[in-house]
């Protein structure tokens, strides 16, 4: 990553905003990890630690009416799209104040009022859904753009193949963002396929494919900006491959150690998206240490507030179990 270029490419104010968002995503997950390990949260959680620059880089281009479809590893996408930490955490806690009133949890969390169309427990499933939402946007000519996040694991699924082809042939306003973190659970992408370049697969469907450093929030922002712009102008879909890495296990409970070398993890930690952004702000003189400390505290307060809110919130009423089926 070239710092010289970076400062030319972005204002310090904007970078500070990204930094705060990156940190929010990071600290949120760290808190979730702690709560989960302490047995406070039910269900299963997949944390986004290490991949924050993808969500923030992409979503910083979006307006509230734009739609995001996310995955099982979706807390970061929700937060980056603007869903308040409070209702995300309350949902993870199964509380009535959560974004799904406690009915959803980590993998089924919806906040359409913020343009967040859900995390998803089914790998691949959001890709057709997002494509459909883009069809809706195109027909209504409302200049909405739809972003679909998915992992490298989803790329070998039929859902990817069928949906991306439809998005391309119908020239829909959708951006397909693959978070290639090299593994699907313990399965290395290069054991799952002979072609490990996701971007190159765009050719099979006749849409543009771009690869980008997923640890570099500015690079992601720029690539996404172009794709989103083109989508908005009815120029059609793009497939973006973000090379990234999770620093934690696949889900809480998975040590994530036996299929990855310590070295590999360490190398990727050198490219920590939060640290990179922080260092850049300092090095470029965009912010000074005390400004950054203030920013850090602001984010910490946000997380603390969310914990307090979620903890104090009521459980859903048992007799509401039959509501909202139809």
């Amino acid at each position, binding site marked *: 990553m070239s710092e010289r270029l970076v400062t030319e490419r972005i204002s310090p104010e904007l970078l500070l905003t990204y930094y705060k968002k990156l940190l929010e995503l990071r600290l949120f997950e760290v808190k979730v990890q702690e709560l989960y390990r302490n047995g406070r949260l039910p269900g299963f959680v997949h944390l986004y630690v290490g991949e924050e620059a993808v969500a923030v880089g992409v979503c910083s281009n979006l307006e509230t009416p734009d*739609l995001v*479809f996310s995955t099982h590893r979706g807390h970061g996408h929700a937060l980056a799209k603007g869903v308040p930490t409070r209702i995300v955490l309350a949902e993870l806690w199964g509380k009535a104040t959560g*974004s*799904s*009133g*406690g*009915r*959803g949890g980590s993998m*089924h969390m*919806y*906040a*359409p*009022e913020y343009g967040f*169309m*859900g995390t998803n*427990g*089914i790998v691949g*499933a959001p*890709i*057709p*859904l*997002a*494509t*459909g*939402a*883009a*069809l*809706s*946007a195109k*027909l*209504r000519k409302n200049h909405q753009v*739809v972003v679909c996040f998915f992992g490298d694991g989803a790329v070998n699924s*039929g*859902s990817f*193949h*069928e*949906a991306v*082809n*439809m998005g391309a*042939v*119908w020239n829909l306003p959708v951006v397909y963002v693959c978070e290639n973190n090299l593994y699907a659970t313990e399965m290395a992408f290069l054991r799952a396929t002979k072609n490990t370049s996701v971007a190159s697969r765009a050719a099979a469907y006749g849409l543009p494919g771009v690869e980008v450093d997923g640890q570099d929030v500015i690079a992601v922002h720029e690539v996404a900006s172009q794709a989103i712009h083109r989508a908005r102008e009815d120029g059609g879909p793009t497939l973006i491959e973000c090379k990234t890495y999770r620093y934690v296990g696949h889900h809480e409970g998975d040590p994530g150690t036996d299929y990855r070398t310590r070295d590999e993890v360490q190398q990727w930690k050198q490219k920590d998206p939060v640290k990179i952004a922080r260092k850049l702000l300092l090095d470029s003189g965009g912010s000074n240490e005390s400004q950054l400390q203030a920013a850090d505290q602001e984010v910490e307060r946000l997380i603390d507030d969310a914990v307090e809110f979620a903890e104090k919130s009521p459980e859903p009423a048992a007799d509401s179990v039959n*509501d*909202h*089926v*139809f």
Partner: protein
Amino acid sequence: MSEQGRVINYGDAGVEALRDEMRRDPSIVYIGQGIGPRGGNFRQTRGLWKEFGDDRLRDTGICELGATGVAIGAAMAGTRTVIDEVFLDFALEAITQIVQQAANISYMSNGKIKAPVVIRGAMGAVRNAGAHHSHTFYNWFANTPGLKVVLPSNPYDLKGLFKTALRDPGPVALIEHKSLYNAKCVVPEEEYLIPFGEARIVREGKDLTLVAMSRMVDLATKAAAVLEQEGVSAEVIDPRTIVPLDRQRITDSIKKTGRLVVIDESPSSCSFAAELLAIAAEDCFDELQVPPQRINSLPVPNPFSPVLENQMIPSVERIVGEVHKMMKSSRRKA
């Protein structure tokens, strides 16, 4: 259902419902294979493409999984859609989307997101299409919380139920029968809606209750006519929608007649016929005079050979035969 008026067939009744609703609600988009210029494998969209064009009648390649997901995603985002699987068998390609996404979304989102999508498919045996093109599956859908399930047995019901489906807030499985597309009856040109959850008494009777769905209604009616000749008065009921189910009207009839025979084209284990027998046992225990019976297709894949398939599927003869046996067995109460 009146005896007088304009007679049209099942296929055209569906087209009419669609045309009406697509005119009324410009957000409706219809997605499927061969449903555009071709007008549908069963002629089930004939003429619509001319009026509504490529934007609203969207032909896809062979990708039911993707196309169904697209229809559901569009519905979640505010566009009312129909996904036509053409043969219901092909819904299997996409059933993960139907069950996990469409049926669950309202509940999972605490009612914040609805998926107004009609999942359309034609089921059942037709002209010896063989094992891959003859499934019924409606009991699977009825077992899926969040899905409504509609089984029109005639043109009149198809039109009225399809229109209701196209105004429903959530996903509706509209399951037609491939062998009914040429069936005819009187269908008003004027608008009418048939509410979900209202069974139809096809004919009244007092000795036994025949419940049948979809094409089996025709067989039940024919069997009832034969039985009438023999002095047995059969009430024939068509639930029309199996979710929601008009439990009241069905159990009232069973209580009245004391005898139940269900005719169901699906294999019997865990079928909708099993459900109705269970309901009868739960709700009509004291009134049932003899054990309730179900007549299902034999539990085999649909054979190609006409001889074998005729053997497999319920027939008027088999219904009449079962009723004979049932009428012979002594009543529990005098």
